């Protein structure tokens, strides 16, 4: 029996390792990311989708000016305009011979522009002249004389007779009667920029909701990411040291952290914000404090359990120093949970910030922020649902994306690829 046997272990063992497992080392990081799809199935897609979403948000947050059609604090439209509805674009009627003039052409104080008394056309005219004046160079001022008429026909008669230079009315009203005035035509829209429309409507002071949402992303991400980072940088080392060293230090820290943790989040944040005062920096700090205990507890728990693992004891038996054990053995095995908490944390921080702003704490009231918008829109729930729906939707989507990323990331960060 012994003569026949060839004792030669591992050469043949390698022939057994399947191709794709070998390939994994040779390929670069990007390819590896795509190969990963084969194993992780559903989780990979979750991570991919939420990562794409969040990347998009981050880009929007960094460059809101690329995406927002209007200045968020400018009152660019009529108030409480429903989403997608074109603002009643008032037009300027003028004699055909004048050509396609605009308000600018007949904006001098020697000109007369007429409108029906009491109609919104007057507001439109005023807004148009204001807009012209805002962008006008020094010394130039547009202030045409305003002539009021009882009815549309009276005004158009006057225009046809040459008594005024232009008349402001809505296209709907004109469509019926303009035929009777062969010498008149619609010269131009009253405002050049009104054609852009308001995708998500406007709020009560005429600001474009969509632009506010876009600019709100920046605030949300800044606050969310910064506060999460601060919590992490403080909570993780404390948890590591506490779990590792134990003893009285551990007890004291745990007591403090547990007390903080047991506070209902928003209340604590309000308390801290109230003490610190207004301002974006203070908001970040108060939200950060809120999450430090979470990082601390999880990291401490993980440290305690990893400390008991056999490979830590093996490291000890090698003669490894305690600092090295902490950095090379415990910390790398604790990181996966930290990453997960972080991603969920950011989402939650954004939610908390929205809540704080909603309640009126922290941010200056004119800041384009989802929470502030939610607060201002409260009273208009029935009349103008878009004031709170869109900010609310944004908060939910961003928070959800972060959570989704965090949860599905836990599968991927688990080192056990194969089941052996």
């Amino acid at each position, binding site marked *: 029996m012994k003569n026949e046997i060839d004792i030669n*272990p591992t050469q043949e*063992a390698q022939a057994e390792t399947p191709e794709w497992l070998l390939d994994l080392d040779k390929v670069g990081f990007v390819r590896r990311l795509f190969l990963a799809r084969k194993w992780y199935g559903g989780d990979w897609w979750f991570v991919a989708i939420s990562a794409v979403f969040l990347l998009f948000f981050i880009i929007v947050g960094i460059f809101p000016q690329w995406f927002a059609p209007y200045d968020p604090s400018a009152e660019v439209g009529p108030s409480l305009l429903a989403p997608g509805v074109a603002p009643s674009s008032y037009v300027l009627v003028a004699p055909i011979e004048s050509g396609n003039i605009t308000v600018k052409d007949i904006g001098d104080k020697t000109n007369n522009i007429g409108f029906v008394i009491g109609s919104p056309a007057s507001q439109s005219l005023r807004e148009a002249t204001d807009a012209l004046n805002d962008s006008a160079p020094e010394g130039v001022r547009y202030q045409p004389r305003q002539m009021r008429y009882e009815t549309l026909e009276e005004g158009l008669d006057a225009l046809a007779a040459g008594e005024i230079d232009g008349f402001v009315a809505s296209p709907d009203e004109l469509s019926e009667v303009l035929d009777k005035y062969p010498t008149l035509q619609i010269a131009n829209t009253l405002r050049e920029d009104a054609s852009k429309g308001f995708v998500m409507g406007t709020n009560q002071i005429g600001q474009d909701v969509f632009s506010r949402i876009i600019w709100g992303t920046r605030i949300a991400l800044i606050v969310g990411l910064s506060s999460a980072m601060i919590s992490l940088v403080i909570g993780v080392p404390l948890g590591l040291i506490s779990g590792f060293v134990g003893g009285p230090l551990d007890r004291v820290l745990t007591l403090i952290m547990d007390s903080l943790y047991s506070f209902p989040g928003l209340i604590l944040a309000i308390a801290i914000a109230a003490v610190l005062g207004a301002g974006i920096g203070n908001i970040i700090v108060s939200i950060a404090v809120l999450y430090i205990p979470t990082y601390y507890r999880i990291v401490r728990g993980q440290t305690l359990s990893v400390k008991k693992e056999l*490979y830590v004891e093996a490291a000890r038996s090698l*003669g*490894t*120093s305690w600092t090295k054990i902490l950095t*090379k053995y415990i910390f*790398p095995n604790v990181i996966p949970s930290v990453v997960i908490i972080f991603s969920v944390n950011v989402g939650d921080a954004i939610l908390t910030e929205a809540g704080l702003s909603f309640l009126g704490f922290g941010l200056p009231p004119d800041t384009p922020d989802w929470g502030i918008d939610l607060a201002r829109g409260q009273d208009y729930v029935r009349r103008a649902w878009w004031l709170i729906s869109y900010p609310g939707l944004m908060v939910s989507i961003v928070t959800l994306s972060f959570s989704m990323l965090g949860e599905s990331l836990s599968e991927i960060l688990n*080192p056990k*690829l194969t089941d052996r």
Partner: protein
Amino acid sequence: MTDTKLNPQNENDYLVEVENLKKYFPVQVGFIEQFFSKEKEFVRAVDNVSFKIRRGEVLGLAGESGSGKTTIGRVTIGLEEKTEGKVTFDGIDLSTLNGGELRRLRRRMQVIFQDPMASLNPRMSLGSAIQQGLEIHYPELKEQHRDMVLEVMEKVGLAPALFYYNKFPHQISGGQRQRVVIARALVTKPELVLADEPIAMADVSVRAQLLDLMVQLKNEFNLTFLFITHDLATAKYICDRIGILYLGKIVEISDLREVYAHPMHPYTIALMAAVPVPNPHERRKEPMPKGEIPNPIHPPSGCRFHPRCPYAQEICSAEEPLLRELRPGHQVACHFAEEFQ
């Protein structure tokens, strides 16, 4: 390396000397109970054990659960503090060392653990894991570390070494992981290796490979082994001497062939008979001792085996038998050992 305290260069035969070792673990009491119970109770894991290990020999410590074999191993290596007694490594009394000195002494004594998956850091590559010992104890040889690791990997059969160097524990098989553990233990060229049930978790067909590997390495590097096992059949293939433990005490100790051919303690006889033989023609006919292993918190009086021993007499429950040499080099702790020769 220039530390003479840690490298006395003694000429004595014995690398390890353990004298009257005791290790008691206090029993955990609940918060309320500690006000009611009178005295503290202890698990007497190791209760007055003495032995010596010669340079280059493989001493086996065999026993069932509660025998204290693993605890003895851990105390001998310094992973656990003793309660009483003296442990000497190369003439150095371990209790005279402070934390830093003990850590540096580790270079000369290493461990092979039972569970290879659990004893490897899942986030450290195999090459890196093996290299740890070198980084700690030979930092001055930094440039040569990688080559030294590759060399030892080839030696334990992880070939080609470059292929395995960057792999992680979950990417290789159980048998290969145990080879990594062995490589990690040997890279610092230790003198003493504590092997705690090193092949118990490997596949049957791989165990022979690993045993053979350990014997080869022992011969090549002139290693001394303290081999902890519950499997007397396996011990036969690697141990030079063997000690049988029961409930924290050595009941019999001698050369392996001597103990296996002439077991004298009733427990040893029963234990050896209990081990199944892979040969249906040699099925066990002997009956097994009654009862079960008692609670180590309250061990029986006198000879700890007396409640189960078919030959127990009155003296057995009254007086604890001491180890006495009945045949050359063969010690037994039993009042009536002569009758079982």
